[in-house]
């Protein structure tokens, strides 16, 4: 879980914060509230997660409960991985 969180965090920092602001981003920060990730960004994140962790994501799983912070995505990915194992 910690490793997944770290990998996702790195992806968000590199792609949406352009490598800066690492210290300002908390893993619980809401992407929507902070205006960090827009609709195209979410699709980028989804593609990254699908490829990196080899999991399929259904439309109904694309909701803020699963995708609106680094921690939420990590928890979601962890859940998906434990089911497929």
């Amino acid at each position: 879980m910690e490793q997944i969180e770290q990998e996702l965090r790195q992806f968000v920092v590199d792609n949406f914060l352009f490598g800066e602001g690492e210290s300002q981003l908390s893993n619980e920060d809401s992407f929507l509230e902070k205006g960090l990730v827009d609709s195209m960004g979410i699709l980028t994140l989804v593609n990254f997660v699908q490829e990196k962790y080899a999991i399929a994501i259904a439309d109904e799983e694309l909701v803020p409960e699963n995708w609106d912070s680094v921690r939420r995505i990590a928890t979601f990915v962890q859940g998906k991985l434990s089911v497929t194992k």
Partner: protein
Amino acid sequence: MQVEEFLERSARHFPEKTALVCGSQRFSYAEVDRLSNRFAHALIRCGVRRGDRVAVCLDNCSEAVFAIFAILKAGAVFVMVDHTTKSERLHYILNDCQANTLVLPSDKLESFQELLEHTSHLRTVFIANLKGSLPAGRSRCFISVSEVLETESFGDAAPAKQCIDADLAALIYTSGTTGHPKGVMLTHLNMFSASNSVISYLENNSEDVILNVLRLSYSYGLYQVLTGFHVGGTVILERSVNYPFLLFEKIKKEKVTAFPMVPTIAAMLLQYDLRQHDLSSLRYITTAGAALPQHHARKLRELLPHVKIFIMYGQTECKRISYLPPEQIDIRPNSVGVAIPNEELYVIAEDGRRVGPGVVGELVVRGSHVMKGYWGLPKESERALRPGPVPGEKVLYTGDLFKMDEEGYFYFVSRKDDIIKTRGEKVSPKEIEEVLHAVDGVAEAAVVAIPDEVLGQAIKAVVTLREGAQLTKQEIFRHCAKHLEDFKIPQQVEFRAALPKTPNGKIDRKELRSPVETQA
């Protein structure tokens, strides 16, 4: 008729009907009217007078709607500013229009603190979603919006009317070629005319439920609220399109009939399986802001055969210019359609004479929806507004090159200037170039548009570095993100040893569009 009367009239006809839905909040027409009245009285008490400019820097939330109508009810002029706007641009706009009042969300207070100190005309700041206590202002008065809305004693009846429809209702800032935004001056009559025309061809009525994901700072988004309220429909405001699944659910639950979008949103939605969702309530989809790629139009029609697709074209300077009747979409897929009701459109040659079908020239718009000019910019206004056929009348020169076919359908050819259209928004290359020039180590920078399937046009920055300077693309992106709104951040940065020039020394923008990597 004045714009605030769109709300007031519907509040009389349909007091209990749902006017506005924002997240879990629902407001009837009577409630929206009452809360806007309280807010209007608070503005007046704070010294807002007829014709004053009041800026609203909020995202798509109920407070933004109350603010718009409150400002109009107070006789003032509303100025919508995108909530992702950075300090420099907000500062420019506040000073340019000499706003004495600003409505701001609580979470922006910290980043705008210095700006607020240095904006001389600003007297009062209304804070939405106040978290914690109000800041102590020495020279500024801070007021909580929610406190105002909860205070009955401000008065639930509308303040006495002072304006006529020739008064200004709004300033809408749009990107200009100079790099500075220009405030488009719109009167009540301008907005009333544009609203009526749009309502008539879309056949809007009180049964309509409009899902608005477009920002209220954008004329296309703002008008969803205005026309929705004008006909007594229901407007659903959404903050983002990040989660299309939730939008599909909303369409089903609220029985949405109208879904306005820009082509970028259409492209994104088409990545989902639309057939899985119940979208049977939808009556129409509109697209504007950029050309809808033909295969997207075809796909939408195939997946949603019951939905009318309206392809439209417009400019902030007059709101809407043309629409393609849905039945023409297969017959004239490249056309932006015909003049909207109560408007005349024609193409003119360089010498100012009207040209016939098939000839390319500048598109001219004539009608009562045409703006009064750009705030404080008489020269630019004169360039855009020129004498029309009736003595004293002004018509709008769009700066867009068009041609017309034999049956009066119009076809966009190109812009006369270098303005970029991305995600349906106008972006000035100059504004981005100025931001790039401010990066330490950058010698020269030029910004061009490149075609993009989803964005319409993507923004490409080409940069040359000073001798010895070392910069990474990341550093350039980061700098842009600090100083520009989200949609203005380039998608591509390319380093070159030198910028290509034309024989007369100008930057050769055509050449810049193709990639040449010379530096890592």
